């Protein structure tokens, strides 16, 4: 068998005509010419076949006038299933009849007119041309699909290399927001404990977009992890770290790109931040709802890796004294490219974004909602129409941690052991506040149920095992108000486990509640549950009666 015949054997044509004779003739013609053929008498069967095995077919041949549906409606359905499937309209209609069918056929660039009286050789020649084009289209489609899968894998790897979204220590806290403009990002950030009461934050923006920037990001992120965890690292200053990164860049990535970076050393106990900007936007300090300029001398250096002989010195470092209430914000310039239009003509003005952020920081500081700060900020941007990302965006905020009277805050990894420990710590705090013991158990139960559900069902892939939940607990009169923020799936997590039908969800709920767990039990324990969504961040607020009020009411009833 020669190559052409082999190719024809693989090409399969779907014939749809309500007349058996036409199906018979077309099948015979195609098979004789070496093509595979499936012939059906109605649109429903054809649609079922295409939905199941569209990639096996190289073209569809259909009549225009059929019993239950005309060929054009059928073509619309085909386009919904496969936008590049060639469609031949084989018809006995005469173009001179004036029904306009020819124009309708040709409105679609991959539809072809073929009279029923078409000579066999013409039909086969035309099909051969179209099948060849279809092969190319399918090859490109497959390539794009494979590329998209690879990119998604790369995105997951990138995400898993980042530090956890939010951390609270006894002295300080940070929270972050990272979003690629497309699938992968050239932005990176690292946050590591750096000696007693200190944290090192590095925010980098590799110049350029796409795969090369993303590869450089992963290289730098890996290098940073090694660098910052090696012995003696906490004795390095931000300028020394910048110099090491400069050498790494020149040695490994000089021909690829360069990186703007902000390297900050936050000493929560001393109340200072030493930082260096290597071509990146300056650190922003917000205090009392105001945006404070902290680098009047315009210190800083060139982007890392841009020039071969750049050396960063201690003179490039800015040391900012921070009050107990000051909050630092580091950001990549992608936030300034957020726009109202896809072309990026109407961009978010810096003053406006900083003002909005300052207001939100103040409110978040006061109410203990800092873990949701950036998600809420993005929501404000979205509400004002700034929804188009022209560049990767990374935001990082950190500050000294101030306990708020009557409010308990924590951030912990979503692992059973961490959840258990977090629950115990929360219970200790409740006892210190004099809450009744039975109520403390209920609050613990709600917290554990929620976070274990996120752990069990909240993530589509296990590359995100470093996800955290942030919580805030306070008392409002006779109720405890427990807020949980997480980045898991936005829908009730059991839906993921049991399929997406409401019925299956309720059945699963009911089964789970019989075992002392599950959302029904949580509903029973709470007066009210609020769910909010800020981009990818979920906020669940549980209002839990503190004196077993609900149970007593039930008993009375």
């Amino acid at each position: 068998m020669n190559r052409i015949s082999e190719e024809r054997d693989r090409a399969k044509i779907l014939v749809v005509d309500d007349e058996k004779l036409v199906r018979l003739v077309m099948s015979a013609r195609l098979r004789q010419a070496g093509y595979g053929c499936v012939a059906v008498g109605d649109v429903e069967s054809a649609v079922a076949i295409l939905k199941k095995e569209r990639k096996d077919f190289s073209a569809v041949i259909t009549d225009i006038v059929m019993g239950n549906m005309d060929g054009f409606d059928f073509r619309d359905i085909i386009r919904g299933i496969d936008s590049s499937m060639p469609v031949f309209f084989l018809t006995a209609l005469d173009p001179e009849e004036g029904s306009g069918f020819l124009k309708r056929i040709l409105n679609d660039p991959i539809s072809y007119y073929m009279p029923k009286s078409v000579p066999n050789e013409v039909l086969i020649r035309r099909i051969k041309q179209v099948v060849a084009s279809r092969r190319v289209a399918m090859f490109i489609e497959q390539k794009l699909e494979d590329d998209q899968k690879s990119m998604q894998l790369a995105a997951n790897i990138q995400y898993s290399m980042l530090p956890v979204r939010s951390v609270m220590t006894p002295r300080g806290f940070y929270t972050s927001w990272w979003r690629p403009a497309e699938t992968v990002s050239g932005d990176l950030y690292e946050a590591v404990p750096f000696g007693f009461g200190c944290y090192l934050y590095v925010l980098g923006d590799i110049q350029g977009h796409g795969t090369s920037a993303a590869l450089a990001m992963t290289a730098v992120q890996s290098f940073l992890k090694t660098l910052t965890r090696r012995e003696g690292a906490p004795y390095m200053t931000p300028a020394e770290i910048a110099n090491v990164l400069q050498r790494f860049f020149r040695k490994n990535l000089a021909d690829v790109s360069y990186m703007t970076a902000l390297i900050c050393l936050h000493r929560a106990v001393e109340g200072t931040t030493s930082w260096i900007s290597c071509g990146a936007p300056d650190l922003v300090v917000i205090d009392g709802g105001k945006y404070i300029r902290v680098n009047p001398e315009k210190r800083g250096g060139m982007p890392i890796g841009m020039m071969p002989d750049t050396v960063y010195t201690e003179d490039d470092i800015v040391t900012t004294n921070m009050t107990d209430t000051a909050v630092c914000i580091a950001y990549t310039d992608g936030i300034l490219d957020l726009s109202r239009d896809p072309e990026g003509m109407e961009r978010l003005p810096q003053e406006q974004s900083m003002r909005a952020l300052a207001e939100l920081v103040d409110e978040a500081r006061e109410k203990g909602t800092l873990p949701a700060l950036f998600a809420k900020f993005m929501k404000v941007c979205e509400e004002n129409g700034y929804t188009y990302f022209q560049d990767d965006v990374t935001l990082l905020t950190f500050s000294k941690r101030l306990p708020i009277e009557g409010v308990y805050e924590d951030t912990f990894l979503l692992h059973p052991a961490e959840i258990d420990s977090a629950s115990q710590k929360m219970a200790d705090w409740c006892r210190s506040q004099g809450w009744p013991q039975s109520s403390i158990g209920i609050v613990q139960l709600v917290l554990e149920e929620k976070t274990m559900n996120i752990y069990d069902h909240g993530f589509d892939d296990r590359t995100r095992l470093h996800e955290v939940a942030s919580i805030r607990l306070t008392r409002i009169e006779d109720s405890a108000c427990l807020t949980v923020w997480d980045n898991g799936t936005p829908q009730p997590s059991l839906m993921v486990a049991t399929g997406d039908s409401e019925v299956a969800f309720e059945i699963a709920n009911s089964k789970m509640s019989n075992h002392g767990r599950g959302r029904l039990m949580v509903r029973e324990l709470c007066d009210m549950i609020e769910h909010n969504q800020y981009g990818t961040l979920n906020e669940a607020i549980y209002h839990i009666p503190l004196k077993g009020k609900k149970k007593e009411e039930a008993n009375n009833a």
Partner: protein
Amino acid sequence: MKECCEKYLAEQFGGDEDIMREIYGEYVQSVHEKIGELKTALDASNWQSADKIAHTVKGNALAAGDAEVSNLAIELRKASALNDIVQCRSLLAKIEELAKGL
């Protein structure tokens, strides 16, 4: 097998007699069926249905290479568009006559 059909089908299928016989047999059967359906449609003055059936007869005749029946079906569609029952019946009678010889 009608001569024109035999010639056309032999050209199309390289003289494969099995295929030719199968297609021709199906064509003959379909013409007889459609004649019955056309009669019913014309008796009920259902012009839309008559037009659609005539269109199918035309398509099937083209597929089998029967130009005579195909041309009569085209004429029948035109007469049906003018609601000309006399002409329609006359054309149908001619198709029926030809069908007897298939």
